[in-house]
């Protein structure tokens, strides 16, 4: 394959097509080795975690509980979150947009980017409820999309994180990369999405399902603190749930359907996007970047999947012909 870096040794592994059992055994062995080594060298660490009733290996769950409890009690908000910036009232932004539009100076997207640059922290992190509320209002006013950080009581682990490029998903048994034109170089994911095939066969693949794969998003449902406890409700709730993804650097926004779970926490990414989603968010070379991801409150299924071309959308109080 062309374009490999010398450091990309995993291609050699791939060529041998290792199987799942083999990989699992190797990884498990390494895990046991690491655990044993730590416990032999530092028995007081094992004792410490045992007394606290947690396992070091499950520290992410503990972190989720600590942060969850902090958010509930407001403890985390006593001191401003890292990188917190002061938020002007949303109506000030809307006024700015109206003035700019009336004078035909600045398109809404530019104003949105300036707003995000001014008021979001440089490094991604979970946003406070106030910050999320603020963005909901701004998105609604500027783009006309009813986006919500919390919808029907559900909230992602983070709404401001890093998105990474994903491959195409198989829509039905026998689906091939050739039917995913024009984005072929990204390839097809070897496994299925978290909800399996989109359709049982090619003939059952509707336009709606085609669109769901084309504009799909990946979110970390597996790390939701109550994911295992609230099944099958959560799995059904998240299946094809519409989200709006906003590239915080350029303001490009897209409506996508959640169709897979991931990425792993240790990848440094929090979301994933289909080749089409990534292309629209950042262009052909865009592989990774900061985004805001909110649910779309669309009970009547009126918001179509795909790009949000809000420079053409009517702003509150501004006739469409003036935009």
């Amino acid at each position: 394959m062309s374009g490999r870096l010398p450091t990309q040794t995993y291609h050699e592994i791939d060529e041998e097509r290792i199987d799942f059992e083999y990989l699992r055994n190797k990884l498990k062995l390494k895990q046991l080795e690491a655990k044993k080594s730590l416990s032999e060298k530092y028995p007081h660490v094992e004792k410490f975690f045992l007394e606290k009733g947690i396992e070091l290996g499950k520290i992410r769950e503990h972190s989720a509980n600590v942060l969850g409890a902090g958010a509930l009690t407001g403890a985390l908000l006593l001191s401003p979150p890292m990188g917190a910036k002061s938020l002007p009232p949303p109506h000030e932004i809307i006024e700015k947009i109206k003035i700019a539009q009336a004078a035909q100076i600045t398109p809404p997207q530019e104003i949105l980017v300036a707003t995000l640059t001014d008021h979001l922290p440089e490094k991604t992190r979970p946003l406070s409820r106030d910050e999320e509320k603020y963005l909901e209002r701004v998105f609604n006013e500027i783009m006309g999309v009813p986006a919500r950080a919390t919808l029907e009581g559900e909230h992602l682990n983070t709404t401001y994180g890093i998105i990474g490029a994903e491959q195409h998903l198989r829509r039905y048994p026998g689906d091939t990369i050739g039917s995913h034109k024009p984005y072929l170089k990204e390839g097809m994911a070897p496994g299925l999405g978290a909800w399996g095939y989109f359709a049982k066969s090619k003939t059952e693949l509707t336009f709606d399902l085609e669109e769901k794969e084309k504009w799909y998003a990946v979110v970390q449902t597996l790390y939701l603190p109550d994911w295992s406890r609230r099944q099958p409700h959560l799995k059904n709730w998240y299946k094809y749930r519409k989200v709006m993804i906003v590239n915080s650097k350029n303001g490009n926004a897209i409506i996508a359907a959640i169709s897979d779970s991931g990425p792993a926490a240790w990848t440094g990414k929090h979301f994933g996007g289909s080749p089409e989603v990534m292309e629209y968010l950042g262009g052909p070379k865009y592989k990774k970047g900061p985004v805001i991801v909110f649910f779309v409150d669309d009970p009547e299924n009126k918001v179509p999947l795909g790009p949000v071309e809000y420079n053409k959308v009517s702003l509150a109080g501004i006739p469409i012909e003036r935009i």
Partner: protein
Amino acid sequence: MSKLYYDHLIVLDEVEAVIKRTAKTQEEKEELWKVVDETLHHRVMGKVLDKLPREHHEEFLDKFHASPHDENLLTYLQEKIGENVEELIRQEIGNLAYELLQDLKKKK
């Protein structure tokens, strides 16, 4: 949410690529992700404690337990260890990635 103070130092893209190419179902993928995650926490903790003077171990463990997400832990470690802690953790994660990939290449 779930966050650890060293999340931003983790680079395991190649391991991720192997898992993605091998796991056929979501369950398989998630199982392997968790195994790697657990290994990582033990290795990072081991490396940190190797460098941290023994008299500070309990204090660090208390702080880590109270706020595993808090990046100020890096500042704390930096002060007590006196070395570039971020680089130490990065190196340890790099070593783990290398070892895992070498192990997998030894198949035949």
